[in-house]
């Protein structure tokens, strides 16, 4: 009892929230991997996993058990501290961003007044982790994958931040709850459709998803920066990618689709529906478009997305000044 009073309501809320987040991340990864395989399969007119459990629902559990049973091979000349730390550094910051996401009107672990900036800052740490993974692997293909990933992530951060800034300009605050509250009458996707399109493209590039998945290009670089990782370490990279997908979709839902707002159902249900609809959109991209070449990728970011995002910002500022 003493410990609880010492922690206070904030502390208890933090602990309960963290436990819930860890549970959510695990269940989400399980669900998303199954959903990806099923979506991919049905877009290719085949059934996908059907054996383990009804319509392959437990297939991911079977895969996780297999990965846990694999030998953790550490190549000889790797840079040990960095090699061991990379999977952890890629996963933890993404986990921390769950602190500020408003799942419903009251379901938010810590409503910080730097909400959106925190999320963007922590998402950038994954770049560092990928660089660590690629460099420490002592494998030239991993280094190529890592360098490409760094160039890609940095290039696409800029339109991402500028697009988010145009939304923040309209709201006037970084707090995610304020952004959701400001979407009472119209969702921001109606007011800024260009920003939404730019955000989704940049989000796909930030999470290293096809068509921007050169760093993990399965057919070109063996597996890119995570070639030398086996078993549970590889699973952590995978987990981080799917969790990152959830985070960017959650941010898009909050910024553009009105967060937890919706008519009849409770807020949480609407939020999850919006997030998973956006994740379906990202998966839809994967099975429609071929991978872009590296020079096309960088051209697209610097010559098309950045000018467009600045134009969007200017137009938003102008509109706010006039109306």
């Amino acid at each position: 009892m003493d410990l609880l009073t010492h922690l206070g309501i904030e502390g208890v809320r933090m602990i309960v929230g963290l436990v819930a987040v860890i549970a959510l991340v695990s269940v989400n990864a399980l669900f998303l991997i199954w959903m990806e395989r099923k979506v991919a399969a049905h877009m290719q007119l085949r059934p996908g996993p059907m054996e383990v459990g009804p319509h392959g629902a437990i297939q991911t559990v079977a895969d996780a058990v297999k990965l846990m049973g694999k030998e953790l091979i550490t190549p000889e000349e790797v840079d040990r501290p960095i090699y061991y730390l990379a999977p952890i550094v890629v996963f933890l910051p993404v986990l921390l961003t769950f602190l500020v996401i408003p799942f419903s009107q009251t379901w938010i672990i810590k409503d910080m007044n730097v909400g959106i900036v925190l999320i963007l800052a922590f998402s950038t740490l994954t770049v560092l982790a990928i660089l660590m993974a690629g460099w420490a692997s002592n494998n030239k293909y991993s280094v190529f994958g890592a360098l490409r990933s760094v160039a890609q992530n940095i290039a696409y951060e800029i339109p991402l931040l500028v697009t988010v800034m145009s939304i923040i300009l309209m709201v006037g605050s970084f707090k995610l709850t304020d952004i959701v509250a400001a979407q009472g009458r119209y969702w921001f996707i109606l007011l800024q459709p260009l920003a939404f399109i730019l955000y989704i493209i940049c989000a796909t590039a930030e999470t290293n998803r096809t068509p921007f998945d050169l760093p993990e290009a399965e057919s070109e670089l063996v597996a890119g920066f995570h070639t030398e990782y086996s078993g549970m370490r590889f699973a952590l990279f995978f987990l981080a990618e799917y969790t990152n997908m959830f985070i960017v979709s959650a941010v898009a839902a909050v910024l553009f689709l009105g967060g937890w707002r919706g008519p009849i159902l409770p807020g949480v249900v609407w939020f999850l529906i919006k997030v998973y609809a956006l994740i379906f959109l990202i998966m839809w991209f994967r099975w429609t478009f071929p991978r872009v070449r590296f020079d096309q990728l960088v051209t697209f970011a610097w010559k098309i997305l950045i000018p467009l995002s600045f134009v969007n910002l200017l137009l938003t500022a102008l509109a706010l000044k006039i109306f």
Partner: protein
Amino acid sequence: MMTYFKEILVGFWSLLMGMAVTIRYFTKPIVTVQYPREKIQMSPAYRGYPQLIIDPETQTHKCIACEMCSRICPSQLIHVEGTKFPGEKQKRATKYVHEHYYCSLCGLCTEVCPTTALEYSAEYRLAGFKREDAVIDHLILLQERQKAAGLSPTPVPTAEEIAAAAAAEAAAKEAREKEAKAKAAAAKKPAEEVKE
């Protein structure tokens, strides 16, 4: 300047068209047939393992155990045995076994059969756990197919019946030979008498 914007718009439109194609395919039913849980209807020209034809007139097989198929099989996989049963005009097969694990589906056995007793089946579910699962006893298979078609199954001759039939045939042959010898002797005698 204008080409820059036009390129963006045309490119964006092509992306949307691509996504429209994919979502249309997402809503179509799958084309995979989930073997072994679902059955497929094979076309009549499908070449499965050779099996005995059920003659529509006699409701049984037409094999006369001439062993042509056995001799022509390049991998020597067919084993036929037959005897002539008393009261019938031709031999009848009493054992027809073929080992399917090395069959190359060349079709020579089907081509060479003088009574066209063989046809290709439509059976594709041939997975088994041991090599012996691929050995097909065609007389038993014929019974199962006759039962499935609602006809009365042809009984497989037992060893005693075969032995009895063989013995009866041997006896009949002996009787015929004796008769032929007696006739030849009888034909020779008057000729000798005339000569003398």
